[in-house]
C-alpha cells in the first residue's frame, strides 16, 4: 500500500543573486494505491504527472506532505533507510531507448541488479542466469535471442519489455509506468499494456500508470482508479470507467472531449466541452486553477475548491459546480 498525502513539490529554477523562478509542480496531491492495485494519472503536458511518479519511485524529493510505503512514513527515514522501500517501486521510463545503456548488452543490463540481489540473499551464479531468462520470459521475450543483444538491435516494444524485465529483477511491489507506451509504435502499444495488466494479475504487482492518453488507462484493469491532474492538483478521482463515462469536472470533460472520434466506428459525445482558450503565461494563482479556462465558471470559483465527495456523484472531484456531461464518443455498435 502506497499512499500520499498533500504532496507538494516546487522547483526553484537556478537564478542568480536577485531571485529565482519557481515552478509549482505539485500543490498538495493525495492518492492511495493498494497492494496489487492500479491507478492512472492523466492530465495535460506539464501538469506534474512525471514529477509525482518520480517522487513515488523515490527519485525525487518532495517539499511537503507525506509519502507512506507500507505504513512507513518516508520522510522520517534517512536516505539510506529509504532505499530498500523505494526499491520495491520501480519506474518504467517513457523512452525505452534512453532507459537502456546503449553500451551494455541486455545480459549485462539484467545481470547487474541480479548480482546485487544474489549477493544479498546468498544465491548462486546459476540463479542469476536462470532468473535473467525467467524475467525475460515473463515479459514475453525469448531469452536466447535477446540476452546477447545491444539495445539498438531491438525494436521499441522489445526495449520497453526489457525495461520492464529489468524492473522485475528486484521483485517490485509496484511499477510506475510513466507514459510507458507513448513512444512505442501504435501497433505494439497494446502488447505492452496487456503485459502490464498480465503482470498485475500473475505477480500481484501494483501498477501506477501515467499518461496523457486517457484510453490507455483502461487497459491496466477495470479495478483501477483514475486521477485527473490539472496544474499540480488532482481535480477528479474515481474508478476508471466511471470517470470516463460520467466525468463531472469541466477539465476532465474538456480532456475527454478532445479525444478524436473514430468516425466510422464511433459517434461523438452529445455535450462536448471546449475550454476557453487562454494564454499560458501570467497564470492566475488564486481561486480555482481551471477557472480562467472554464466555460462553466461561476461566482464561487474565486476560491480554491478541494477534492470532495458530493451527493449523487460517484467520484471525488474539485469543482463547485459539478455536473455530469456525456462527452465521450460511443461505439457505433452500442447504439
Amino acid at each position, binding site marked *: 500500500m502506497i499512499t500520499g498525502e498533500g504532496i507538494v513539490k516546487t522547483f526553484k*529554477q*537556478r537564478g*542568480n*543573486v*536577485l*531571485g529565482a523562478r519557481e515552478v509549482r509542480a505539485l500543490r498538495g496531491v493525495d492518492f492511495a494505491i493498494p497492494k496489487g492495485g492500479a491507478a492512472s494519472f492523466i492530465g495535460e503536458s506539464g501538469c506534474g504527472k512525471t514529477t509525482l511518479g518520480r517522487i513515488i519511485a523515490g527519485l525525487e524529493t518532495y517539499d511537503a506532505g507525506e509519502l507512506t510505503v507500507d505504513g512507513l512514513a518516508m520522510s522520517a527515514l534517512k536516505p539510506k533507510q529509504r532505499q530498500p522501500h523505494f526499491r520495491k517501486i520501480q519506474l518504467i521510463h517513457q523512452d525505452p531507448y534512453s532507459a537502456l545503456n546503449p553500451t551494455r548488452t541486455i545480459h549485462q543490463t539484467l545481470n547487474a541488479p541480479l548480482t546485487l540481489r544474489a549477493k544479498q540473499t546468498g544465491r548462486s551464479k546459476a540463479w542469476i542466469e536462470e532468473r535473467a531468462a525467467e524475467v525475460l520470459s515473463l515479459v514475453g521475450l525469448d531469452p536466447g535471442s535477446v540476452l546477447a543483444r545491444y539495445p539498438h538491435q531491438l525494436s521499441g516494444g522489445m526495449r520497453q519489455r526489457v525495461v520492464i524485465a529489468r524492473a522485475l529483477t528486484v521483485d517490485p511491489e509496484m511499477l510506475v509506468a510513466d507514459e510507458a507506451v507513448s513512444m512505442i509504435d501504435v501497433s505494439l502499444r497494446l502488447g505492452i499494456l496487456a503485459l502490464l495488466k498480465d503482470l498485475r494479475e500473475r505477480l500481484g504487482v501494483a501498477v501506477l500508470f501515467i499518461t496523457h492518453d486517457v484510453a490507455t488507462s483502461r487497459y491496466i484493469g477495470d479495478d483501477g482508479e483514475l486521477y485527473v491532474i490539472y496544474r499540480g492538483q488532482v481535480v477528479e478521482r474515481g474508478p476508471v470507467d466511471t470517470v470516463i463515462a460520467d466525468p463531472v469536472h469541466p477539465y476532465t470533460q474538456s480532456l475527454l472531449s478532445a479525444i478524436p472520434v473514430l468516425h466510422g466506428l464511433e459517434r461523438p459525445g452529445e455535450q462536448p466541452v471546449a475550454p476557453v482558450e487562454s494564454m499560458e503565461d501570467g497564470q492566475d494563482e488564486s481561486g480555482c486553477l481551471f477557472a480562467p479556462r472554464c466555460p462553466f465558471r461561476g461566482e464561487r470559483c474565486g476560491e480554491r475548491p478541494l477534492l470532495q465527495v458530493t451527493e449523487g456523484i460517484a467520484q471525488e472531484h474539485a469543482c463547485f459546480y459539478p455536473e455530469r456531461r456525456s462527452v465521450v464518443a460511443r461505439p457505433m455498435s452500442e447504439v
Partner: protein
Amino acid sequence: MTVIARRLAGHLARGIVMVLVVATISFFIVRNIPGDPVAARYQKLLEQGMSPEAAERATAVMYGFLPKGTLWEQYADYMTGLFRFDLGVSVTHPGSPVTSVLGEAAKWTVLPVLAGTLLSFLVGVIMGVYAAIKRSGKLGDFLAISGSLLHGVPQYVLALLMGAIFTTLIPVLPQGGTADILFEPGFNAGYIGSLIEHATLPVVTYALASYGGWILAMKSSVVTVLGDDFILAAELRGMKRTIIFRYVARNAILPLFTILALSLGLLFGGAIFIEKIFNYPGLGFLLIDSVVNRDYALMGGAFLLITAAIIVANILADLFYTVIDPRVRSGEEASA
C-alpha cells in the same frame, strides 16, 4: 534589460573576487621565485667589463626598488596598491611604474592581436561556411583538415615557419620593432606604412594560428544550423536562397560571437610565442622578459593584466550574448 543588469551584477562580483584571487596567487608564486634580480644584474655588469666593486655598488641601488617588509606586509601593500591601480615599481625598468610599462607594451599587443583576430575571424567564418556547404566534397575535406591542422599546430610552429620563410628565405619583412623611428609618429603615411610593415608578420601569423579555430567552429555551427528544422522549413516555404543563407549565417555566427568576445580576452596574452619569435615588444614579450629578469612586480602585473582581460572578456561575452540572443534576453536561461 533587468536581466542584463542582474547578470552584470553577478558577473562583476565574481570577476572582482577572481581578480583578487589571481592577484593573491600571482603574488605568492612570484615571491617564491628563487634567484635574485640584483645578483643577476651584478653578473651582467661584470660581463660588460665593469670592475667587481663598481658592479656591486651599482647594483646596490637596485635594492631600493625591491619590496620591503615581511611577506604579509608586502602582500597588504600589494593588495591595497591594486585598488589604486598601483602594481609597484619594476626593477628592470626602474623609475617607470609597472602600470606604465604595461601600458606601453599593451599598446603593441592589443592592436596586432585585435587585427589578427578580426582578420582570421572574417576569413575563417567565410571559409567555415564553405567547408560546411561543401562538407561532403573534396574542397570541404581539405578546408576541414587544413583547419584542424592549423588549429592544432601550436603558434610557435607557425611563427617559426613564417619567420623562416619571410626573414630567412625571402627576407622581405622586418623582424622586430614597431615602426621606423625616422618617421614622425602620428597620422602620416610613412609612419603608418612602417607600423603596418612591422606588424605584418605578427598579425598574419596570429591570424593564421587562430584561423583554424574559426573555420572549425563556423563549420560545425553551420552544419548544426543547416540540420535545424527551421532551415528546411524556410526552404519548403520557398524562401530565396539569399534569405535562407542569411538565416543560416545569423544563427550560425551567433555562438561564434561569444567565442570571439572570449578570444578578445586573449588580446593581452595571446601572442607570447609570436611576440618572442618576431621580437615584437608587446605584453607577452614583456612577460617572458620579466620572468627571465626576475622582475617580480612586472611579472605579477603582466600576469594579472592578462588574466583580468580574460575575466572582463568573459563578462562582456555573456552580456553580449544576452543582448544579441532574444532567447536569453527575455530571461529564458540558455541551456548550457
